[in-house]
Structure formats: structure tokens, C-alpha cells
């Protein structure tokens, strides 16, 4: 007996989705994953061949023994965990079963193996690919289980011939969709009583350089080639931001020894917040354009708390903060998981008096800390004077140096310094090619050579704007360094001598990447990290909204109008409002369906029913009545026929309809579909008869 191809394909699709999910976790050896995927493809191919030549039992016996041996070695020597060795064995079982799908039971076992694969994958990872693989797995599961079920009760050919119709496929797809929404409803309502006793460990934090108290010169270069996400930042009132550059500040450095930057003024002190409200940072500027933002920080191997230049307040789930005299903010400990906090900053704006100062009077501590130049860089001052030319004011000099570097030096991440040469000296007087660190260091040193206090800052550029989630995506490649120069009236002002670079990725790839990142954030926020507090919050909101709604509805018509606006604002106006409404309608529909079927007798041997024959008969009576021949209540159906002055041919049709109706109505006869169609045909031909058309 040949299995229907649809079932063969569905089972392999299920195996493919489960194996892909497992492979994407990165916990399966690449050769094993490749072998499993190749086996799925090969076994699918064999279903299309009329008489495929497959290996015999001897081959499978030997292969099974080898697989078991490999499992034992894997378990004791190679695998990082028991689960990993078991997963490899599971993949072999899948391969074996794929080539031995010889009945519904074997297909069911294949479903079980696929389910165990998905289960293992879920324990390994919570990546975004589950957002796609779960619904597809559900669809394939429903399709496969239905086909297995139907193939059990019928000969194989009948499954293909009679049941695999387009409506059936539409039905299974719709069923999967409905099931998925039900599953989401169950998922969000099941109480999160998880103890997390055997929770899997947090992912390894991202290693970033350039954010410690001492940074080797040139260390940002390799970092800028990495695309790993570092943080995401949403900015309040984004549309009304002034055209000022946004820079996410990390650490400021005051001392350069020719090979590394370091923060000598690093005496940190603990900062505690008031009973309520945010932390107020001591170095916050008094002037500037206020900006509020929220940062979702990936786990990084640094305790630095990033914020827009220059942060004034910070609020979040941290007991205290640590700050140094240069305005760098630190968390008490390095976070091991994703961390979210809010901040407000003032974007620096130089005051008009500072624009006109030709010789500034700097405070002694500023002069002491921010004019240091390595002794072997004697040519810097000459270069700085050359760059400033005829600039008079301090601000003009700073801008001149910035412009000089931007115009005369080239940006490149591929920088090699000749052996024995100072890299910054080579940048300034030799290759004139470098990246942000070279530019910022050069400008800092040049400003210091002109007796303008300056320091180097490392941090991140805002990166890519994600229009789908309305946030900035900041990757490691957005790591940046820039310059802060001191002005007596304005304080520290930011300058960036690094020339802009064009994005390397194609627009559509970047767009897709942004959309995927938006989905990833949603996935992780609403699925992966959905927790008991979220449920409590949702319940509290529901209670609050219900109370408000009931209060409004008690106020008559005016209250009802307000309630309508309230519902729109509270539910439908939200991004997921319409989905929630659709889910509620689906749930109510299912409830009604179940309730109505419980309350009525589903079938009966004696109940009065609306037979198809009765419908045709009533339609005939109605048609005849419209033409003047009305059946009196005192007449039986057959008496009524005898009184009709119609042509014999028409009477024959009327009599056949009437007798069939009587047989069904009083004799309990059940019409087959062919008989029903025949009755309808009789009525149709009756209506087209010329003898009846006129009353």
C-alpha cells in the first residue's frame, strides 16, 4: 500500500522545521545538522520516485550501531551536556524513521521525534527564529496529524482522492491560525508560577573594549567591525528634536601617554537617589536642550552606564550609582542580563559669550588636568597653529582644528602603523589615515597644544534609526570616540573631527535588518521575558479600565459616548488593540458554539427537522400561490394536486415533488444529495413551464 504523498510531504516538512529550529540554536554540531537536513531532502526525494533504491536492513543495523557508539563517545567526551548528546541521537533517530515511514504509527513516531526536537531547541535558545518556526510547526503538526488520522480510517488512495481538496487545505490552515491565537491567549493567561530552579544560564555578555579606565590606542578599530547589538535607545518627542548631533557617552579620558588613554581623575563616589525619583548626576550641565530617553542595554562586560551627552538624571532598577569627576557613570556591578533604564540629558549648546572669547580664563583644576601632551609629540603644536591659521576666538580655533582634520585626513578602519613609529604621530604626519580614535586623539592633542582644555570620550553614535519600533539600534560598529573641549561659560562642549562615512549595507538589507530587530525586541519583550509582574500589571489595568467603563456607563447617554472614546483609547488605539478584539471575538464565538451545542440535542430519531424536500416543496407552494393557486389548509398535499388545472407534464413534476416531500415528511425517508438535486431540478423546470407562468 502506498502512503498518500501529502502525508509524506507533511511529515518531512515537520521534520525539517524541527531540525532547522534545533540547528539554529547553534548547539548541534554542524556536520550532524547538515546530515539531518540532507537526509530530510533525500527522503523527500524518494517519495517522488516510483521505485527508489534504498539501503537494506544490514546497512541500517550497522549505521544504528555506529550511531549508538557515537552517542556514548559524545556523552562522555565531546558534548557539553547530556542534552546535547541526546539531541544528536535524536537526530539520528529522525533520519532512521524518515527512511522507514511505513504506516500511520511510524508517522506518529516521527511527529513525536519532531516534538522532542522543538522541545530541546526551546530549552537551548529563545531566539527570534522561534517566532517563525512555532506557527509553522503548528501548521505542519496539524496538517500531519489530520492526515495521519484520516489515513487510518480510509484506504490510502481515498485520502488523496476525496479529502485532500483545496477546501481541506484552507480548513487546516485556518485551523492552525485559530489554534495559534488560542495558544497565545492560553500563553498570556497561564499564571507564571515558574520557580526557575533549573533555568538555563544567561547568555555570555558582549565583550566590548574602549570602556575601561585605560584604553590602548587603536583598540576601537576591531570593535567597529563587529555588528553585535549593544543597546537600543528610544527618545521622547523624537520629531521635535533640534538638529544637534546625538552621542551616547561612555567614558572620558584625560591622559594620553602616546600608547593608551587613561582616566587619572577617576576617584568614583557612590550616588544614592532620594526616596522617590531619579538619580541626579552632579556633573550635569545647567544649560542645553533637554532630552528624555530610554535605553535597553545588552549585557556588556563593562559597568558603564551609557547616556546621551550630557546626562543629568538617571532612573532605573539599580540601588545606587557610581560617578567619577569627568561625568562617567557606572553601575554598581556589571549587568549579566539585558538592562533597561531611563535618562534625561541636556544636549550641549554653546553660549554666545563663549563664541567671542579670544583668551579664556580656565579654572586651575581644568588647566591642570586637560592640557597634558606626551613629550615625544613636539610637532603637534606646529600642526595645530597651521590648522587654526587666522582663527581668533577659542571657538573658531576649535572648529578650525576640527575642520582641518576632517578635510585633510582620511577615514579607514584598515590602519597599519610601521614598526617603531608612534601611531598618532604616523597619523598626523605620515599616513594621514585612521578612524575615530585617531581623529579624536589628534584633535585633543592639537587643542591642548593651543592651551585649550580638551579630553577624549568614548561611546557610541546613535547608529541606525528603526522606523518600525521607533528606536535607535546601536551596534558595536557604532562605537565612537570624540572630543570634549572646555569653555568657561558653557562647560564641556562636544566636537567630532571624524569625517562621515557612507553605510556599507544595501538599503533593503538594512531595512529587513531593522524590521527583524523590531520583531526581536517585541518577541523578547512579550514572549521570552513575559512574567508574573506583567500579568499582574495587565490584570490591574483590566480591573481599572473595567471600573472606569462601568462608572462611565452609569452616567447615561453622555457617559456612554465617553465610554466609547475610552474603549477606543484604552484598547483599540493601542498597537495590539485590534488583535485583542479579534481574539476576544474568536473566544466568544467558540464559547457560544460550545454552549449552543451543549444545550441542544445534537441528533434525534424523532425530532422535526427542516428537510431539504420540505424546503423545495414550500418553494413550489409559494411559486404556485404567487400565480393564483393557493393550497388551502384543509387540503392534503395530494388533494391540492388534484385540484390544479395544469398541463399533465407540469402536474407530473408537481406530484413527484409532493410525493417525495410526503415520503420524507411523514415516511422518514432521507434524501441523498442526488435526489435533492433532482427535486431542485424539477422545481426549476416547473418555473420555466409556460402553462404555469400565467395565473
Amino acid at each position, binding site marked *: 500500500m502506498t502512503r498518500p504523498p501529502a502525508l509524506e510531504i507533511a511529515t518531512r516538512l515537520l521534520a525539517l522545521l524541527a531540525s532547522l529550529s534545533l540547528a539554529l540554536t547553534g548547539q548541534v554540531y554542524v556536520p550532524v545538522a547538515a546530515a539531518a537536513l540532507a537526509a530530510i531532502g533525500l527522503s523527500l526525494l524518494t517519495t517522488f520516485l516510483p521505485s527508489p533504491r534504498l539501503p537494506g536492513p544490514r546497512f541500517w543495523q550497522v549505521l544504528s550501531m555506529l550511531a549508538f557508539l557515537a552517542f556514548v563517545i559524545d556523552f562522555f567526551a565531546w558534548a557539553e551536556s547530556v542534552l546535547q548528546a541526546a539531541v544528536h541521537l535524536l537526530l539520528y533517530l529522525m533520519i532512521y524513521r524518515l527512511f522507514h515511514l511505513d504506516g500511520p504509527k511510524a508517522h506518529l513516531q516521527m511527529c513525536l521525534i519532531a516534538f522532542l526536537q522543538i*522541545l530541546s531547541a526551546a530549552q537551548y535558545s529563545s531566539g527570534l527564529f522561534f517566532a517563525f518556526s512555532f506557527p509553522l510547526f*503548528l501548521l505542519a503538526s496539524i496538517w500531519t496529524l489530520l492526515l495521519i488520522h*484520516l489515513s487510518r480510517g480510509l484506504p490510502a488512495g481515498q485520502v488523496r482522492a476525496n479529502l485532500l481538496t483545496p477546501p481541506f487545505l484552507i480548513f487546516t490552515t485556518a485551523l492552525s491560525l485559530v489554534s495559534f491565537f488560542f495558544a497565545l491567549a492560553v*500563553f498570556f493567561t497561564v499564571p507564571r508560577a*515558574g*520557580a526557575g530552579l*533549573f533555568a538555563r544560564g544567561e547568555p555570555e555578555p558582549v565583550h566590548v573594549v574602549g570602556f575601561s579606565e585605560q584604553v590602548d590606542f587603536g583598540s576601537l578599530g576591531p570593535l567597529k567591525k563587529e555588528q553585535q547589538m549593544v543597546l537600543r535607545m528610544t527618545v521622547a518627542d523624537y520629531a521635535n528634536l533640534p538638529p544637534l548631533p546625538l552621542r551616547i557617552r561612555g567614558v572620558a579620558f584625560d591622559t594620553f601617554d602616546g600608547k593608551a588613554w587613561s582616566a587619572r581623575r577617576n576617584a568614583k563616589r557612590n550616588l544614592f537617589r532620594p526616596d522617590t525619583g531619579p538619580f541626579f548626576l552632579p556633573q550635569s550641565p545647567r544649560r542645553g536642550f533637554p532630552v528624555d530617553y530610554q535605553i535597553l542595554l545588552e549585557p556588556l562586560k563593562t559597568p558603564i552606564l551609557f547616556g546621551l551627552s550630557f546626562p543629568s538624571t538617571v532612573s532605573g532598577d539599580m540601588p545606587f550609582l557610581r560617578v567619577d569627576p569627568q561625568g562617567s557613570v557606572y553601575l554598581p556591578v556589571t549587568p549579566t542580563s539585558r538592562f533597561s533604564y531611563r535618562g534625561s540629558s541636556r544636549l550641549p549648546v554653546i553660549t554666545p559669550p563663549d563664541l567671542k572669547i579670544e583668551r579664556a580664563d580656565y579654572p586651575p583644576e581644568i588647566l591642570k588636568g586637560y592640557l597634558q601632551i606626551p613629550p615625544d609629540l613636539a610637532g603637534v603644536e606646529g600642526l595645530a597653529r597651521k590648522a587654526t591659521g587666522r582663527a581668533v576666538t577659542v571657538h573658531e580655533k576649535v572648529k578650525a582644528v576640527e575642520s582641518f582634520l576632517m578635510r585633510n585626513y582620511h577615514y579607514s578602519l584598515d590602519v597599519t602603523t610601521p614598526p617603531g613609529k608612534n601611531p598618532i604621530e604616523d597619523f598626523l604626519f605620515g599616513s594621514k589615515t585612521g578612524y575615530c580614535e585617531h581623529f579624536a586623539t589628534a584633535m585633543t592633542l592639537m587643542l591642548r597644544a593651543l592651551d585649550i582644555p580638551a579630553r577624549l570620550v568614548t561611546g557610541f553614535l546613535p547608529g541606525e534609526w528603526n522606523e518600525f519600533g521607533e528606536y535607535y539600534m546601536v551596534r558595536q560598529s557604532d562605537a565612537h570616540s570624540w572630543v570634549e573641549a572646555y569653555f568657561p561659560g558653557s562647560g564641556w562642549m562636544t566636537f567630532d573631527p571624524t569625517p562621515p562615512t557612507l553605510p556599507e549595507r544595501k538599503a533593503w538589507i538594512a531595512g529587513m535588518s531593522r524590521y527583524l530587530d523590531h520583531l526581536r525586541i517585541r518577541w523578547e519583550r512579550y514572549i521570552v521575558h513575559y512574567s508574573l509582574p506583567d500579568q499582574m500589571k495587565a490584570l490591574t489595568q483590566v480591573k481599572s479600565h473595567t471600573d472606569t467603563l462601568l462608572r462611565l456607563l452609569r452616567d447615561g447617554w453622555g457617559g456612554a459616548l465617553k465610554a466609547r472614546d475610552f474603549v477606543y483609547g484604552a484598547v483599540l488605539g493601542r498597537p495590539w488593540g485590534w488583535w485583542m478584539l479579534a481574539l476576544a471575538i474568536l473566544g466568544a464565538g467558540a464559547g457560544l458554539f460550545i454552549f449552543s451545542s451543549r444545550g441542544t*440535542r445534537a441528533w434525534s430519531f424523532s425530532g422535526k427537522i427542516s428537510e431539504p424536500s420540505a424546503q423545495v416543496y414550500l418553494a413550489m407552494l409559494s411559486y404556485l400561490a404567487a400565480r393564483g393557486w393557493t393550497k388551502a389548509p384543509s387540503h392534503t398535499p395530494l388533494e391540492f394536486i388534484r385540484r390544479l388545472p395544469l398541463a399533465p407534464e407540469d402536474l407530473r413534476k408537481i406530484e413527484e415533488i409532493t410525493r417525495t416531500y410526503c415520503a420524507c415528511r411523514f415516511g422518514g425517508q432521507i434524501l441523498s444529495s442526488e435526489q435533492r438535486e433532482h427535486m431542485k431540478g424539477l422545481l426549476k423546470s416547473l418555473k420555466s413551464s409556460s402553462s404555469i407562468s400565467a395565473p
Partner: protein
Amino acid sequence: MKFLTGPSPVLSYRNRSLRLTPEGVLFIFLTLVVGGLAINTANNLLYLLMALMVTVIMVSGVLSEWCLKGIRLEHKMPGRLFAHEPATARWTVLNQKSFLPSYTLRVSAEYPHMACNEELFVARVLPGEAQSLGSAFSFGHRGFYKSPTYRLSTDFPFGLFEKALRLPGTQEVLVYPKLHRLWTVDETFALGGEERSSGKIGEGSSLYNLRHYQQGDNPKHIRWKVSARQAKLVVEEQEQERDPRVQIRLVNRAPAASPPVSEADFEEAVSLSASLAYGLLRKGYEVGLSTSEGEIAPKRGKAHLDRILYHLALVRLHSPQDPKKDAKAAGLTPPGRRSCQTLVILPWEDAAATESPRCRVITPSQWKKRLEEEQE
């Protein structure tokens, strides 16, 4: 053929019952395992998997309800039912729903003490469609079967649960005794030697009279040789033959002195009586039946056979009474009808039972031996 009693526990609610299939047991077990894992690991993806599995269970319940809803059944039993005789019931399954089909329906009618009942399987019934199908069944005992339970079930969509509707019915079925195939019934029990002449003119094979031909006589009856000798047309008249008559006397009240009668032997005696009546009537005999509960005069025809079988379907074994009544009731006294041969069916061994040319006594050892010979 499949016995309907299932081993797994059944949940019942408002005529509906839910039974877990082996796959369903595994599925529930896996759901519990995943739920336990989710709680222990606080892994939301495991919660999601568990939610998917719970949804599959919910969807199974809703879809199976949808399959059973709006189904109308018509059940027709055959006219004569014999114990241990497989028969076919006719089912008509109508889907009264407007636009939703029903899949993988199983239908059966269950009577108490039913020996065997084949479930009817309907793969799909489209909306408004009726399907007529037959299902085999058999009853283990003769007698009235009342209060059937009609059962409509489905394990759609995934085969994890079997949801069944059970509704009580009012249809009554009378099951006749088990029939043995007695191919040579008259020879087996040495029947057929009695007088068959009636003394009346009629249709028959023996000559009654010769007379002159009259207008309207059948030319086939002209005796040409006699006519030639007398030079006049002479026709023969035939004597109407009377059908052979057999009165079956089933002894269902044993005398006090007789050995105890086992229920099995009595059932075999009833079965033999029915088989004899059936076989003899088919061979053209007039057959009557007498028991301690009454007597049916010998006649022919299908309606008469039904009357005898009806009586035999309900006849019971009575306890012995006083000796005088016993002797009469036991049928050991010769019958009053002279023109009728009598077969006395004894459900116990009785060496003292007297036989005559017109009264044959059949004991269990005799009929068993004859039945074995018949089978061979």
C-alpha cells in the same frame, strides 16, 4: 467486528462521553511533562509549547463536537433475526448542518447482551448529504431486546480523544432461536410415512375418477387410450393430496422424576425445534408447535413460520409440577391428532420415553449425534 466495551476510563457528561485513545494518553502525558518543565525552568518558550498543546486539546474538543452536531441517523434492522446469526443493519447518516462537513464518524446501536456489533465508519458526510451503509451484528441469545443505546462517535481531528454521543432508543428487536442447517430434515428424523389422501377431488398426483369430457376441461387431463377404447373423450380426475403434517412438541416442563435440565440443553432443544420447523416448512410440511404454554396448529406459510419462531423466541423452561400435569405437559402421552406425525423434543435423556410410528421422541444425545453427522 469489534467489541464495544473499551478498557480506558470514560468521562461522561450530558449523553457525551470522552475516552482517551493511546495516542491521547501519550499526548496528555507530554503536556504535563512540558508544563512541569516550564514551571521548573521558567522558560517562556516551554510555556508557549504547553499552550500550543493545551490548544490542540481544546481544538480537539470543539471540532469533535462540531462533527457530532447536526447528524441524523436512521437505523433499520432486518425482518428476521436469529441468535448467533450475523445480520446487516442498514444505516442512513444525514448531515443536517448547513455548511460544515463531518469527518470520521463511527455509528453503532448497542443492545444489552449483544454478542457482536460492527461499528459503521463514515469518512466524511458533506452538508446536506446522506450516506446509506450497512453494518454487521449478531445477538447471542433469543428473545426480546429492548432499550438500545445509539452511539455516534468520532475521534476527529487528531485521534487523541474519542467523543461519543449516547442516546437511549425505543426500538425493540425480537431475536429468534439459533437455526441449524438441517439439509435432510425429514430423513434425519424418519418423517414422511403417514397418510396423505384426502378423499376429495383436487390437484394431486394419484387418480381419483374417470369421467366423460365436458366443455371447459383441461385437455391435458384427457386419457387418450381409454378414450380410444370407448370412442368418447374421457378425462381423469385427481385426488387432492393433503400436505404432510408434523407437530413439534417441545417439552419445556420436565417431570419431577426427570434429571435436572441444563439451560444449555434447553436452549439447544429450542434451537432444534426452530430448525425443524424452518426446515420442514421449507420442504412443504404443515408444521405445528406445542409447548406447555400453548399450541399452534399445523399450517404452512411464512407468517406461520414467524408465529412458531415468535413462540420459540420467548418460550421458557418451567419448573416441574405435580406428576399428572407433568405427564401431560411433558408430551409423553400420544397426541390426539391421528393424521399428524409428532416430534417430541426432550431436553433431557429419557430411556423410558415410548415411541410409536407417529410419535418420535428426540433426546439430546440423538439430536447432537445427528447434528454432527449433518455438519460432516
